[in-house]
């Protein structure tokens, strides 16, 4: 049959009609739509048995209990633990996103050693042997004191094990991260006689005066503070925030006093002046329970009249007087300090002045006042370490950071001074550095100097869980389990009013070839042998933990997740103090009567002032923000990869900068490109920069975004204590 055009055409049309009328196209259309509903690249989460596990968050010192929802062996969600004394079901942004840290692609999955700049996996035996060999060699050479450590956890068994290891081995150079708690402890020691921690009874205060503390920006125990402040709204308690910037805390305050930054101590002294000159203080307290009042009073009345204070602080005389009266007349007034989240200790002058303010109104140890708190619930005592001769001799060496030395006899730890000491070549060079639970390369001020100092240390060992900035600089990493994979006690202080300890438990089995840092310490100690090994007779960390907590606590902790010391009762001032004279000792007037710590830098070259600000939407410490946090970071803080700094529109007009404009921010410590955001909620002349960005390491969600405040702000040693008292730095901002 010859196929002509007509035939072809009709065949074609016929076929088309036939196919259309058949079920085929309909079936295909339907199948295609079903396929779009099950795209193989869109994950389908497998179902399974749901289990809720109680544990403890360890991402900040806040001490929240967590409930971990597990489906089969997967951690699906982390929520606040209902009924927990700290957070009762609530949880902060970081805690809520903690599962993203567990499943982060940036976990360190096995012990690794740096060979020619590249990481190579090694066995645990090799990793531990490398360390013990090095430590044994150093001890033999009489250089035990050149082994140093920077650790994050301030309390708890892991921290205790580190201290024990350093004592038994013979090095004084173990440094803990410092915070406002250190400044507070020192003030409590000087005034009340024992080095304890402060507790703040917000729950019963009816007037809260905060000197720049970010009470709802992560200060203290964040969730507890949220709850306490929410409760204050219900009780109609008044809350005054003294801060140069309208932070979230200032926004929630009943009154915002935008002070000139760095002059908070002066305002506190000015308020004391009002109270003293108008005799508004608690007379019985001053007359019966104090020492040094007259000298102190004289100094304040002479040096800090409200008129003078008003000039320095930028706060009106009338406001100061009214505030002083209102504070003193309140039934349960409470003044607190520690800037932002309290990550920087702050000056002795400021902390002491604020504490005296509390003392004068008679609220020490009282309802709604400041309490002297133990560092945590009591543990079963460990046998005393008996350092051998080598160790005993090495422990006589002065600490590198100068803490407890001639210059700063009062300080416990001064890690912020370490870089300066190493870079100026003072003291014997550190040969071996342990970094555990800390990320000094990111968190210590003056990043450049810290990097330089660390680069000068020949061997650095990290116990990180994630490949952070400090781990990247290390030579050997002995990865710790992620906190959701390990046992650990979490004693909580953070300004709470009763001693609490939480227990973190492994909610999932360790995913990788990691080891509990406690087990690593025990293994190192046992391998070092002799007296050192004798001091670590535990089989492993878990038995150590169990023994230390004791059966009763262990049982309660594994069941409930937390243990509260019900017996604890604060000691009211009427019952005296722990000082030798059992009295409150007013601080030496000389230590308060001097200009406050100023921002470093030449005012001509750097006419502005840079301040760092903390928020709950970014993790500003050793832990890098997980993707959820980066997602909720506002575009007024991070725009694409650029850090956005906040300035007052008036400042912007002076500088010729418009909203979103690119600019170069420079300080004596560093410079970088930023964008500007104009906001009326900040004092003119200031530049505010969010803490928590500018990570060099971590995953692609975080790395390379924004800039690190620590690269711009250097440490300033407080002349009285040596603690870092920097609150900002001189800066310039120019159109890019």
């Amino acid at each position: 049959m010859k196929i002509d055009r007509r035939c072809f055409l009709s065949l074609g049309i016929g076929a088309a009609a036939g196919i259309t009328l058949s079920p085929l196209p309909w079936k295909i259309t339907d199948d295609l739509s079903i396929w779009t509903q099950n795209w193989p690249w869109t994950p389908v989460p497998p179902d399974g048995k749901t289990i809720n596990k109680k544990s403890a968050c360890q991402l900040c010192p806040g001490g929240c209990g967590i409930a971990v929802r597990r489906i089969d062996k997967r951690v699906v969600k982390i929520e606040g633990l209902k009924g927990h004394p700290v957070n009762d079901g609530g949880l902060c942004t970081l805690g809520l996103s903690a599962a993203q840290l567990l499943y982060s692609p940036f976990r360190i999955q096995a012990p690794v050693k740096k060979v020619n700049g590249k990481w190579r996996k090694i066995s645990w035996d090799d990793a531990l042997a490398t360390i013990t060999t090095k430590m044994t060699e150093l001890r033999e050479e009489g250089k035990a004191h050149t082994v140093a450590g920077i650790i994050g956890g301030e309390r708890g068994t892991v921290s205790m094990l580190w201290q024990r290891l350093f004592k038994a081995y013979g090095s004084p150079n173990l440094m803990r991260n410092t915070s406002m708690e250190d400044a507070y402890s020192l003030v409590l020691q000087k005034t009340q006689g024992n080095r304890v921690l402060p507790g703040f009874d917000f729950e019963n205060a009816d007037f809260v005066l905060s000197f720049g503390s970010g009470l709802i920006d992560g200060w203290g125990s964040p969730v507890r503070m949220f709850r306490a402040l929410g409760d204050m709204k219900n009780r109609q308690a008044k809350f005054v925030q003294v801060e140069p910037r309208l932070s979230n805390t200032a926004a929630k305050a009943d009154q915002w006093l935008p002070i000139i930054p760095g002059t908070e101590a002066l305002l506190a002294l000015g308020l004391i002046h009002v109270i003293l000159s108008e005799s508004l203080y608690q007379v019985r307290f001053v007359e019966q329970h104090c020492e040094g009042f007259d000298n102190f009073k004289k100094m304040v009345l002479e040096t800090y009249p409200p008129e003078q204070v008003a000039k320095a602080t930028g706060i009106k005389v009338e406001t100061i007087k009214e505030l002083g009266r209102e504070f003193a007349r309140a039934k349960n007034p409470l003044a607190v300090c520690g800037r932002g989240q309290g990550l920087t200790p702050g000056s002795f002058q400021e902390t002491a002045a604020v504490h005296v303010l509390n003392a004068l109104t008679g609220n020490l140890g009282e309802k709604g006042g400041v309490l002297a708190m133990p560092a945590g619930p009591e543990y079963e005592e460990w046998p005393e370490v008996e350092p051998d001769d080598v160790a005993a001799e090495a422990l006589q060496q002065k600490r590198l950071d100068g803490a407890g030395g001639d210059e700063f006899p009062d300080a416990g730890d001064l890690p912020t001074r370490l870089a300066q000491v190493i870079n100026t070549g003072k003291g014997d060079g550190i040969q071996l550095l342990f970094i555990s639970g800390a990320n000094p390369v990111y968190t210590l001020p003056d990043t450049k100097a810290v990097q330089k100092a660390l680069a000068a240390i020949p061997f650095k060992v990290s116990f990180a869980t994630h490949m952070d900035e400090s781990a990247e600089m290390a030579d050997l990493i002995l990865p710790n389990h992620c906190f959701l994979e390990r046992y650990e006690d979490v004693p909580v202080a953070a300004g709470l009013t009763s001693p609490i300890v939480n227990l973190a438990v492994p909610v999932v089995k360790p995913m990788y070839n990691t080891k509990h840092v406690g087990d690593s310490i025990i293994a190192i100690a046992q391998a070092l042998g002799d007296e050192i090994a004798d001091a670590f007779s535990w089989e492993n960390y878990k038995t150590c933990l169990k023994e230390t907590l004791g059966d009763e606590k262990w049982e309660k902790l594994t069941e409930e997740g937390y243990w509260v010391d019900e017996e604890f009762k604060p000691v009211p001032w009427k019952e005296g103090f722990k000082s030798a004279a059992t009295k409150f000792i007013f601080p030496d007037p000389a230590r308060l009567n001097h200009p406050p710590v100023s921002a470093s830098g030449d005012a001509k070259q750097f006419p502005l002032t840079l301040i760092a600000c903390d928020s709950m939407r970014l993790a500003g410490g050793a832990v890098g923000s997980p993707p959820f946090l980066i997602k909720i970071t506002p575009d007024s803080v991070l725009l694409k990869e650029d850090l956005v700094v906040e300035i007052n529109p008036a400042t912007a007009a002076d500088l010729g900068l418009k909203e979103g404009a690119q600019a170069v921010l420079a300080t004596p410590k560093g410079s970088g490109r930023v964008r500007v955001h104009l906001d009326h909620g900040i004092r003119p002349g200031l530049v505010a920069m969010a803490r928590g960005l500018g990570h060099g390491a971590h995953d692609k969600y975080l790395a390379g975004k924004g800039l690190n405040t620590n690269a711009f702000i250097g440490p300033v040693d407080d002349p009285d204590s040596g603690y870092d008292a920097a609150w900002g730095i001189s800066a310039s901002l120019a159109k890019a």
Partner: protein
Amino acid sequence: MDSALIPEGVKRCPLPQFTKGLAVVGAVLLWGVFAMLLCWLKGLNQTNMNDYYGFALWIWADLAVIALGGGAFFTGLLKYILGKDELKNIINFAVLIGFICYSSALLILAIDIGQPLRGWFIFWHANVHSMLTEVAFCLSCYFAVLTIEYLPLVLENRQLDKVPFFHNLTHNMHEIMPVFAATGAFLSCFHQGSLGGVAGVLYGRPFAYREGLLVWPWTFFLFTWSAAAYGPCFTIFLTKLMEKITTKKLVKDNVIELLAKISGWMIFTYIIAKIIDTGWWAFRTAPEMGFQWTDFYNNAFYGIWILIAEIVVGGIFPALILITPKGRSSSTGLWIAVILAIIGVSLNRWVMVLQVMAVPVLSFDQWVLYFPSWQEIATTILPVAYGVILTALSYRYLPIFPQEKELNPA
């Protein structure tokens, strides 16, 4: 070479020249197809749309081409139902333009939806209360009608007409064309209206929201009316453009003038209705929702000028030119009028899509500006290129303009 396919008695350019022209437009078409494939394969992240601009350039293009393609139904209505017989000389072209416009609209919609493979859910899981459902049904049906109207024209090709079956089919279809024209007009009234309703029912968007009659907001009627009014202007514009390009007279002046006159009066009446509607909305509807009408125009970009451009420049001006005999009979006057009219109706559709999205409703929200990505622009130009090609082919091989032979004797 292809002379056997060209209608009898008319002159066409040589095939190589025609092919070259097609190739240039074809390249633009391919660029558009490439962008379309990107959107289908990679998703709508290829566009600059976002959660504030869920509707943007494409939906505007859809509304605009459908309004401009309104010439087809309205001319059909005038010729077949209202008996304006002169219009038979332009109806073919009007149908062609309508066909192009509506097929383009459907294509753009198919790119615009996030799940094109599920697009048919609009029919299968139809929500009869949604204006968009009404649009989808009427649009598809009317497109079918346009296809039926366009088909006889295709079959009138010299070679196809030789097939007796096609010849007879064409003849019979011509006979029943009034039925389709009536159906088309009915469907068009509804889908043009429901396109207006799409914005008008948005009671969460005070800029778009209009009160109305029963379930239909006033924009429903305004859209139908404006499509009928402005569509013929587009038909006239393209006819004039064809004449410029081919350097031939294709349609007699009396035909054009008749259409222009009707269009002029339609625009005139429409713009009065539009002014009344705007006034009612500005001084009654919006204030009840807490807005001053100026709030809607206080953005730095074009402000109040867009309203003036739409109503005065794109409405009153062309209406006045077209209703005056002198205006519409002068070549310049006609050109200016139809171009202003096209701009006017396009602006109206722009405002009813883009500005609806841009105006913040929450007091603490912000104006957001939008600029389309190249993929959006390319896919919007794609139907233009396709339209040019289909028009060129139709003009070359089909007797689109019945008066061409008479006006251009060999």
